[in-house]
């Protein structure tokens, strides 16, 4: 199980979402992707997409206006 992080600080929608989608394609099942974002709408559209694609998602607030979106690829 590999873990990869993706720095999307300073990037606005929909760039974090598209970058995460591309990264997920390259990953194997059970791998974990951590997306670091500071754009609040990425905190909504990224988890929405990941859940609808059938992956496990967790959001952690790491600082003021900064989040880690942790996605585990499940299929």
């Amino acid at each position, binding site marked *: 199980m590999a873990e990869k992080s993706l720095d999307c600080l*300073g*990037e606005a929608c929909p*760039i974090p979402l598209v970058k995460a989608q*591309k990264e997920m394609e390259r990953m194997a099942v059970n791998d974990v992707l951590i997306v670091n974002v*500071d754009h609040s709408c990425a905190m*909504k559209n990224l988890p929405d997409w990941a859940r609808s694609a059938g992956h496990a998602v967790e959001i952690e*607030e790491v600082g003021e206006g900064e989040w880690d979106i942790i996605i585990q690829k499940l299929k």
Partner: protein
Amino acid sequence: MDEKKNYPFHELYLKREWSYTTGAVLLTLLAIALVIVTGKAWGVTGSFGMWGGWFLNLFGANVDAWDGFKGTPVSTYNFWMDNTAITDLGIVIGAFLAVLLAAQFKIKKIKNGRQVVAAVIGGLLMGIGARLSLGCNIGALFSGLPAFSLHGWVFFVCIFIGAAVGSQFLKKYFI
């Protein structure tokens, strides 16, 4: 996190994003209130044109003679008497207050030069577009549709075309 349990009201109403339905209902009620109080529909970018004209006047441009300023001369413009300017100010103050209440204020870094170029070109195109179509997505669309104005629907179709073209540029230069 522990804070979620300690401050459930803060978490639910100030921190977590409101639903689209909540936002839509509030926007509608506030827009109706604005029409009742001021007698004019909500707009945003109309004032930007006035501020631009005022700025050019500083350099002796005399924009009052231009067709675009017929009926709304810059020489007699008063920021504090301009409904749109006041609501624009309210948007900035309100957004600032909301982000502080949610404890999510952050000064974001500029990641690369492309972001600057895109912001400048995008801002100019949006500004020119908003003036040519006599309004932005608020003045022309949001306030145009409930007034049964055809130009709102034309605007509605055109922003989708613009967004489709813009997305292609975004994919090409930012992904």
